């Protein structure tokens, strides 16, 4: 534990272990038992590392920081020009990576049960998706930020296409075409910031901009802001690119969507905070971000209301609730940022509960459309209980976790003199409730039709060849519901991790 502060041992491990696992399981290809053993032990190792790791930095170039008055230092506590590619593992990174590691372990467990063959490559993609999200949330330099986003976009396409259905392949194709546009924009944006400041380290660039009072005086900065916002919108699935992301969520296996939506939330948070740190001095920067967030919230929830398939309802609700996360960040105040970050944590948890329930519905053999299946409550009351808890959490009903974060967001909006935003957040909560309970009533609570054959293999490709719902899925549901209730009753357990980050972003933005 006595590592030099700029050489934290856990950061390379959180990146290298999933990459090595991906290579290994890909090589093993079809050796099911070996792949299961490696993938499961690797995901548990990642969870353990994320839990026990202290906080600190990793300076990849290995050179000391340059102290302005003269001299060098390896300590991040002393102000110095860092001049290096840098990762930071702090309280925000810890809570998000711990949750993502937990979800990775469950998703790997489930996918080894669901897929019968050729799953080495698929599990490899899941581990790489984890890596891209871990990179983006820890990064503090432009180079790794850009690589993480680009790499992540390609992996999203890979994971979606892996389900092998034509709808998934089309969604992956469209997503990849647009990732090319967004990636090009981001590269130009970062190059412009670098051209303006001369620093690839984000902390250094912010310090330079602050010292030289670049702020709203530089036209180049506006162009860079525009391109970076474009990438943020695309990476997180915000309006107007939301149809691409909702197609991706709806077309992938529901268990894969758990990791896909987690990665998106991490991208939204990481890029949102970086944009705020870099451009909060620009006039209208926060207003632009806020407008995009509000439009995303409203469009997503309206589209969710129109769906007749549980899978697609969830796909659009994930988009809508991404807007809730970014509304908080866009407010730019300590309370707003805390609310946005807490919403991201909660959103990942309750959406995972709902997606697991959606995965379980596929095992009943009639898809997830509200017209094709009904009456699951009678044969599977526990599953029905789980989906209701997930829906209540998503709708912001106390004492579940969604309530706490939405309350903070509403208070933050009112604190900023924006009651209209508070009203929209409330409307999104109510509409989420209606959209979810429309599906839940039809699929779970409505009396059963003759078409339902409980426990038989599904015609859907996801569950081909399997009959019972895997026990690990119920275990995952129990754990996630437990977390949702605990965070709902004791929100400070999470808020203690998020306060520091919010304070730093607002008051000392050059500190990662």
């Amino acid at each position, binding site marked *: 534990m006595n590592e030099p502060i700029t050489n934290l041992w856990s950061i390379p491990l959180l990146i290298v272990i999933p990459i090595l696992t991906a290579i290994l399981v890909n090589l093993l290809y079809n050796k099911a038992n070996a792949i299961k053993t490696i993938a499961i032990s690797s995901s548990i190792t990642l969870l353990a590392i994320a839990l026990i790791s202290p906080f600190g930095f990793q300076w990849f170039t290995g050179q000391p920081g340059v102290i302005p008055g003269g001299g060098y230092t390896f300590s991040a506590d002393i102000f110095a020009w860092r001049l290096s590619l840098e990762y930071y593992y702090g309280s925000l990174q810890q809570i998000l990576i711990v949750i993502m590691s937990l979800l990775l372990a469950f998703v790997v467990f489930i996918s080894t049960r669901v897929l019968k063959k050729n799953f080495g490559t698929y599990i490899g993609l899941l581990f790489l998706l984890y890596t891209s999200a871990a990179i983006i949330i820890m990064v503090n330099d432009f180079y790794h930020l850009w690589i993480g986003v680009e*790499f992540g976009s390609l992996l999203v396409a890979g994971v979606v*296409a892996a389900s092998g259905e034509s709808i998934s392949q*089309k969604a992956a*194709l*469209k997503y990849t*075409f647009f990732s090319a546009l967004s990636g090009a924009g981001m590269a130009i944006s970062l*190059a412009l910031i*670098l051209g303006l400041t001369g620093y690839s380290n984000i902390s250094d660039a912010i310090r330079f901009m602050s010292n030289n009072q670049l702020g709203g005086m530089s036209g180049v900065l506006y162009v860079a802001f525009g391109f970076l916002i474009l990438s943020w919108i695309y990476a997180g699935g915000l309006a107007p690119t939301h149809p691409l992301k909702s197609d991706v969520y709806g077309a992938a296996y529901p268990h894969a969507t758990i990791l896909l939506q987690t990665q998106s939330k991490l991208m939204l948070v990481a890029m949102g905070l970086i944009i705020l740190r870099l451009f909060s001095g620009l006039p209208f920067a926060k207003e632009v971000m806020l407008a995009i967030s509000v439009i995303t919230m409203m469009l997503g929830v309206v589209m969710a209301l129109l769906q007749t398939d549980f899978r697609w309802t969830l796909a659009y609700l994930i988009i809508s609730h991404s807007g809730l996360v970014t509304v908080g960040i866009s407010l730019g105040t300590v309370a707003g940022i805390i609310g946005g970050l807490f919403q991201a944590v909660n959103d990942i948890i309750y959406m995972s509960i709902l997606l697991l329930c959606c995965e379980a519905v596929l095992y009943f053999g009639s898809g997830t459309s509200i017209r094709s299946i009904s009456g699951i409550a009678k044969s599977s009351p526990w599953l029905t209980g789980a989906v209701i808890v997930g829906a209540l959490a998503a709708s912001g009903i106390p004492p579940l976790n969604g309530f706490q974060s939405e309350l903070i967001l509403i208070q933050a909006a009112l604190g900023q003199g924006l009651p209209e935003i508070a009203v929209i957040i409330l409307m999104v909560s109510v509409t989420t409730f209606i959209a979810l309970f429309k599906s839940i009533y039809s699929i779970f609570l409505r009396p059963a039709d003759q078409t339902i054959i409980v426990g038989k293999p599904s015609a859907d490709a996801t569950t081909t060849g399997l009959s019972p719902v895997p026990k690990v899925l119920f275990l995952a549901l129990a754990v996630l519901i437990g977390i949702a209730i605990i965070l709902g009753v004791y929100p400070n357990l999470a808020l203690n991790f998020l306060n520091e980050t919010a304070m730093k972003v607002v008051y000392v933005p050059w500190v990662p």
Partner: protein
Amino acid sequence: MIEITLQLLSFIAAAILVIVGLTGMLFLDNLIKKIISFTLLSDGVNLALVSLGYVEGGIASILTPGSSVVDFPYNAILIFGPGIVLTNIVIGVSTTAILVALTIVLYKRYGTLKASKVLKGERK
């Protein structure tokens, strides 16, 4: 009067590549032509990034023994542009590979390369 420099010409060439690539990606219906347009766009961005770091009469951004430490920051080209271009080439190739693979799969399924036909009626 704007001075015509090598850097300006490079930026103009990059802009033309980006516009041609973007137009092709958005308006051409053939998937293979869309992929070719993407590579043009990617090349345009790479050229813009390299041009951004260009310094008239500059030197490579490597501090060699005997070179002046005082003059180095003023004469050296910006290294980030070429650095990001190297990675962008790799990412561009990976993206092209994924696009081609998906196009092949969809062509086998639908027997056409027209994006309008392939992407139509995607919901079950």
